[in-house]
C-alpha cells in the first residue's frame, strides 16, 4: 500500500515536471511531500493534490505564509535558488 502510494507520488512528480506549471505565473511547480501539494514558489501559492489528482484551478490555491513558503530541505532550496539566479 505504502509502496503504491510512493509510486503514485513518484510518477506524479515525474509527469508534473514534464508538463504541469503554475496556472497563474506559468513557472515550474515543486512537489511538497509533507503537505502533499504542489507549490508555486514564484507566487507563493500551494495547490492541493486529492486522490492523486492535482487541483490547479486558481480558486483552489492557498496563499502560503512567509515562513512556510521557504523550502524545508536543502536540496529543494538550492534548486530554487539556482532557478532564481538563472
Amino acid at each position, binding site marked *: 500500500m505504502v509502496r503504491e502510494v510512493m509510486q503514485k507520488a513518484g510518477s506524479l512528480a515525474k509527469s508534473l515536471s514534464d508538463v504541469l506549471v503554475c496556472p497563474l505565473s506559468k513557472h515550474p511547480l515543486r512537489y511538497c511531500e509533507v503537505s502533499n501539494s504542489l507549490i508555486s514558489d514564484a507566487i507563493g501559492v500551494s495547490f492541493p493534490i486529492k486522490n492523486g*489528482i492535482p487541483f*490547479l484551478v486558481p480558486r483552489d490555491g492557498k496563499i502560503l505564509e512567509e515562513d512556510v513558503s521557504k523550502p524545508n530541505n536543502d536540496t529543494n532550496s538550492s534548486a530554487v535558488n539556482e532557478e532564481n539566479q538563472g
Partner: protein
Amino acid sequence: MIKIVLIWIMPIQKMKGLWSVFRRRKQETSFAQFSTYNGDDSRLQIFDRNLKHKQRDRAAWLMSSKDPLLHNVADNLLDRLHDCKKDFPTALCLGGSLQAIRRSLNGRGSIEKLIMMDASSEMVQACKNDADVSSNDNIESVYVVGDEEFLPIKESSVDLVISCLGLHWTNDLPGAMIQSRLALKPDGLFLAAILGGETLKELRIACTMAQMEREGGISPRVSPLAQVRDAGNLLTRAGFTLPSVDVDEYIVKYESALELIEHLRAMGETNALFQMNTVLKRDTAVATAAIYDSLFAEEDGTVPATFQVIYMTGWKEHPSQQKAKRRGSATISFNDIQKQFGS
C-alpha cells in the same frame, strides 16, 4: 427514457462551412501575453465560472455513459486525427465531454500519453474511475483539475490539444486558445468543437415568447454562443496557422421540452450567465414547454432541438508548413507565364 434520434445534415453543411486561410499573424510570446490573468476583477464576465463548475460537478453524476450526442461529436472530432499523417504522442484533453473522448479514442492519432483536464473535480474523478474499470489500451493517462482560462501546462510540451464542447463556456475564449497554442509543440494540432449560435434556437424562441406572455419582459435564458464566422477569426487571432472551420448540425428529438432540459442538465450545459435571472416561475416554465410543443412539434409527437457544432482546427507554426510567399518575391512575370501556356 429519452428517445434520441440523430439526423445528419453534415456533408452539405460541411462543404459550405469549410474554409481555410493561409495567413498568420505574429504573436509575441512574452509573459504578459502568456498569462491572461491581470489581477483585477473588472474584466468582462459573461459566464459565472463557479456556477458552471458546480453544474458540471452535478452533471458528472447525471451523465449517461453513452450519450449519443456527445459521442457523435467526439467521434467526429477525433476522426480528424485520421486525416493527419503525423502521430501525436502527447495529448492534452481540455474540459467538456472527457469521457466521450476517452472512449472514442480507439488508438486514433497513436496517442501514448493523455492529460485529461477539466475544471470540475467530479468530472475528472468520474473519468478516472471509468478509465480504471475499462483500461484496455496502453495510453498513459494523467488527470488534472484545471481551468481552461488558466492553463497549467508548460510551454511547448504537448503535440495535440483536444477540446470537445467545453470552450464555449469560457469568458476569455481568445485567451484560452492562445494559451493552448503556447502549450503546443511546434507543428502541434489544436482540435476543438464548440456549440454555435444556432444551437437551441427553438428553445430560445419558446423562452422569449413565454416570458413576454407571462412576465411582460424577457431575460436571457439561453446563453450567447459564437457564430461560425467568429470561429475563423478566433483561430487567426490566437495565432494558429492553416486554420479551418466546419459546421455540423445535429437535430435531437425529445418527447417534450422537459426531456430536453433534463438532457441539458445531464450534459452540464444549463444556463450559467453571470447576470441571469435566478427565478424561474413554474408558470413560465410550463408555458415555455407548451409553446415549444405547439410551434415545433413534429407529426410523431416529438420535439426537435438543434445543436450546431463548430469544429475548429489549427496548427502551431512550423517551418515545414506551406505558406504564401512574400509579396513581390516572384521572379517570373505573369506575362511570361501567359506566353508559355498560350491564351
